[in-house]
C-alpha cells in the first residue's frame, strides 16, 4: 500500500461530527433548543388533555396517559425502588421517560429528523439533574456520612480487599454514574443519526454524483437500508429512553436501600 500524499481524490465525503453542528435558526437558538421546547409543549398538552375529564371508563387519550403512567409505576418504579417510598418518585420518572422518549423519536419524525440527545450537552444536563435527585434522596435518608458510607463502604469485606474496593466503589457510585448515564444516551443517539446520515447521503451520492452506472443501480439498496435502519432506530430510541429511566430508578433504589 502506497501512502504517498496526493491531492485528495474527489469522492464521497462521509458524514462526521461537523454534521451535528447545525446553524442557528435565529439569534443563538439552534434546532435542538427548539426541539426541547417543542417536546415540553407536546408532553404538557398531552397529559393535560389526558386528565382533563377523568372518567371511570377512560377514553382513548385518558387510557394512553394512564397506561404510560402505569408502566412507569408498576414495571420500573415498583420493581427498582420498592417499599412504600417508590410512589414519591413516580411523577419524576414518568416526566423523565416522556421527555426522553419524545426527544428521541424526533430523530425519525420527518422534517424534524434530529434526535435532541445527539448533542452531548443535553444528556449531560439531564444526567446532572438525575445525579442531584438521587444524591439528595440518599443524603436525606441516611445523612451525609451515612450516604457516603453506603456508597463506598460495603459491609463484611476483609480490610485488604477494602483497599482496592473502596476507591472503585467511590469512583463508580459517586462519580461515574452520571457520566455513563449521559454518554450512553448521547452515544446511542449520535451513532444512530450518523448511521442514517451515512446511508441516505451515500445513496444520494451514488445516484447523482458518481459517474458509474453500476453505482446508480446499487443506490436503491442504500436507501432501502436507510429505511430498515429507521425502524431499527425507532426500536433503539424507545429502549434507550426505557434504560435511562430504569437506571435512574435503580440508582434511587440503591441509595434508599437500608443495607446491601
Amino acid at each position, binding site marked *: 500500500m502506497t501512502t504517498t500524499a496526493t491531492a485528495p481524490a474527489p469522492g464521497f465525503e462521509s458524514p462526521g461530527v461537523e454534521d451535528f453542528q447545525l446553524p442557528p435558526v435565529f439569534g443563538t437558538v439552534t434546532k435542538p433548543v427548539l426541539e426541547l421546547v417543542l417536546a415540553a409543549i407536546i408532553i404538557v398538552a398531552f397529559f393535560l388533555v389526558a386528565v382533563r375529564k377523568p372518567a371511570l371508563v377512560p377514553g382513548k387519550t385518558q387510557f394512553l396517559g394512564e397506561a404510560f403512567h402505569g408502566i412507569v409505576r408498576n414495571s420500573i418504579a415498583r*420493581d427498582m425502588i420498592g417499599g412504600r417510598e417508590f410512589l414519591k418518585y413516580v411523577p419524576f420518572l414518568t416526566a423523565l421517560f416522556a421527555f426522553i422518549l419524545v426527544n428521541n423519536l424526533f430523530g425519525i419524525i420527518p422534517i424534524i429528523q434530529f434526535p435532541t440527545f445527539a448533542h452531548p450537552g443535553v444528556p449531560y444536563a439531564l444526567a446532572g439533574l438525575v445525579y442531584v435527585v438521587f444524591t439528595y434522596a440518599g443524603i436525606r435518608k441516611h445523612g451525609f456520612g451515612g450516604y457516603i458510607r453506603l456508597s463506598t463502604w460495603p459491609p463484611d469485606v476483609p480490610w485488604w480487599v477494602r483497599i482496592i474496593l473502596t476507591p472503585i466503589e467511590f469512583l463508580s457510585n459517586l462519580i461515574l454514574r452520571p457520566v455513563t448515564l449521559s454518554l*450512553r444516551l*448521547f452515544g*446511542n443517539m449520535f451513532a444512530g443519526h450518523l448511521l442514517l446520515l451515512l446511508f441516505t447521503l451515500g445513496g444520494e451520492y451514488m445516484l447523482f454524483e458518481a459517474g458509474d452506472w453500476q453505482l446508480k443501480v446499487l443506490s436503491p439498496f442504500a436507501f432501502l437500508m436507510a429505511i430498515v435502519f429507521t425502524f431499527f432506530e425507532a426500536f433503539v430510541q424507545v429502549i434507550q429512553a426505557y*434504560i435511562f429511566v430504569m437506571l435512574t430508578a*435503580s440508582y434511587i433504589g440503591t441509595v434508599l436501600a437500608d443495607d446491601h
Partner: protein
Amino acid sequence: MISGNLNTIGYGLSAIGPGIGVGIVFAAFINGVARQPEARGQLQGIAFIGFALSEALAILGLVLAFALGA
C-alpha cells in the same frame, strides 16, 4: 489508497468485548424465561440493566474514537 483514522479500528476492537457481554446477558435472560416464564417481568429489568452496563464500554469507545480524533 485508504485514508481515514485509526480511531475507527480502535472503536471496532473496543466493541468486541461489549458485544460478547451483551450476548451473554440476553442468553441468560432467555434461559431464565424459558425455565420460568412467570419470572419474566423481574428478569427483564435485571437483563436491561446488565445490557446497559456492558454496553457502556462500547459507547465510551465510540465517544473516545471521535473525541480523540485529530
